[in-house]
């Protein structure tokens, strides 16, 4: 038997495949039998905690402006390429024109955004997220143990 945690894919229950390497361990599920809303309360509690709100706002403060900037830069580039061919054809140096620079600029900014995102996540989020992960898992385990 499993409890109705959607993450543990209730559909697969009884199919005899949960013995895979990384799959959910049956012992945990047994401990949860007949449990009320304990684990759900844990997630609500973690969601309201200051530590989690900090991780979430760090993620959002980086990602929302980032997506806004690169999407508008890309859409602007596509729209300009189809509506202002004259501007795009203006030569800059030798055979290289504005369009070529803008296209190569898209490649360059993509690499830069990738680097910035990976760096931000590594330095500003990973540690805090990992701590929260263990704390949350401890809490859900505690709920399960207490009700047994």
């Amino acid at each position, binding site marked *: 038997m499993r409890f109705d945690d959607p993450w543990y894919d209730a559909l697969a229950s009884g199919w005899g495949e949960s013995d895979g390497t990384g799959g959910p361990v049956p012992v945990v599920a047994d401990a949860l039998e007949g449990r009320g809303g304990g684990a759900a309360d844990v997630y609500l509690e973690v969601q309201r905690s200051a530590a989690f709100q900090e991780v979430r706002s760090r993620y959002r403060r980086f990602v929302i402006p980032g997506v806004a900037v690169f999407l508008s830069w890309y859409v602007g580039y596509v729209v300009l390429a189809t509506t202002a061919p004259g501007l795009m054809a203006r030569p800059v140096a030798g055979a290289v024109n504005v369009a070529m620079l803008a296209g190569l600029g898209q490649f360059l900014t993509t690499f830069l955004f990738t680097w910035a995102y990976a760096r931000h996540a590594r330095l500003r989020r990973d540690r805090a*997220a990992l701590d929260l992960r263990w704390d949350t898992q401890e809490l859900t385990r505690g709920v399960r143990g207490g009700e047994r």
Partner: protein
Amino acid sequence: MTVDHQTLALLLFSAFVAVTLGITTWVSRNRHGSAEEFYAGGRLFSPMENGFAIAGDYMSAASFLGISGLIALFGYDGLLYSVGFLVAWLVVLFLVAELVRNCGRFTLADVVASRMSERPVRIAVGTSSVAVSVLYLVAQMVGAGTLVALLLGGEGEAAQAWTVIGVGALMVVYVSLGGMRATTWIQIVKAVLLMGGAIALTVLVLVRFHGDFDQLLRTAAERSGRGEAFLAPGLKYGGDWIASFDFISLGLALVLGTAGLPHILSRFYTVPTARAARRSVVWSIGLIGGFYLMTIVLGFGAAAIVGPEAVRASNAAGNTAVPLLALDLGGGAGSAGGTVLFAIVAAIAFATILAVVAGITLASSASVAHDLYASLRRRRSKPRSEVAVARTAAVGIGVVAIALGLLARDLNVAFLVGLAFAVAASANLPVLLYSLFWHGFTTRGAVWSVYGGLVPSLVLVLMSPVVSGSADSLFPGVDFQYFPLQNPGLVSIPLGFLAGWLGTVTSAEPADEAKHAETEVRSLTGAGAV
């Protein structure tokens, strides 16, 4: 093409098939058929391995042959494709990769269904995943058939048909025997081959022009007969406002579609953590970006060395530009160097198609078995092993793809790929983003959002000039064309988002606060991730 080319290319290709079949047998020894193993390859690939596999999964023959061919024929306008295909990865990196790794188990539907009433959501998302995969699969099969006809000189219909059947049979063998583990290794081998081939050709082109990129551009512009216009946008997508909107529509579909492709999303489950998923995307962005930069050199190189006229004479869509360039760089037709290079490029193109096709088949068989079969047959039939169902599904999808591939033989490959991206961006992306980021999203919103993107995108294609109403249409004889654009993205992507919002605000039941909290906490911290 001479007999030498064909023999050598066939030999190299057989070697690739032998090696990949060897890999399949090797990795599937001593494996019990657990779902974890079959769908996710045990989740223990390293970020670098997964990065190469993602690149191998993503860079199809349409990229290798198609984009450089478009650049060779139309100059700058071909480059617009590669920019879209690359920038799309920022959407994946920023919004999708880590969160999906943390929340899901095997498929896209896992992420959405965890917050919602499971059955309707799984059926909706599973259906759209299979639809996207089949469209993409047909594009690759058609590409394989065309490629054989072009490269091996078998212009006959029979050679094309047998290639489609052969590719289909091979992919079913890879997927049903080896699962995700074999598919991943095939994609890694293919990515290494593809990058190696592209680097070799790029170096040869640059050596020919003494490392002078400016000189390369000038020569290309001169030989094209269009002069400066060859280096600026407008040769293919210039003209009236319909062409402009069509191009903007394609651009949107390319940049938003990648994050909704089921076979790309399922790759994130093959690494142990969200951090590893992020690092694999960084690897793949490096590889894919480097590859598209090289296709620019190859495309303009083909225009400068081979010339657009010769390319067009060989294949009107430009698909043979790179093989012809290889022939010329190796010393010309009849020379030993030319023969070898040409055969290598042809073999790499085959390898590319096989690897992409295997990845898509695996993802769609997962959707069928894990989402559709599990939801639809749960109560009535006696429990069967999910992996057995997935293996059967792989065979079934193979048969469907072979049949559709034979039917759609004359359709343009680039169009089919663009269509698959448009459907993915309209049906899969809105529901994925809403369920990750919107606390008020409900079951009805999820279902509406999927069908509200899927149905319009397919209907708009049916009413587009691609299907009827013009000389190049699929059915030139009839006219039910009511929609002017070839790519539906500009209309259907906003409709998908709108339908999801509308479904949510009109639903009677409120969103489940606790389940949203769980999704949010899990997606950002990785708590309880499998």
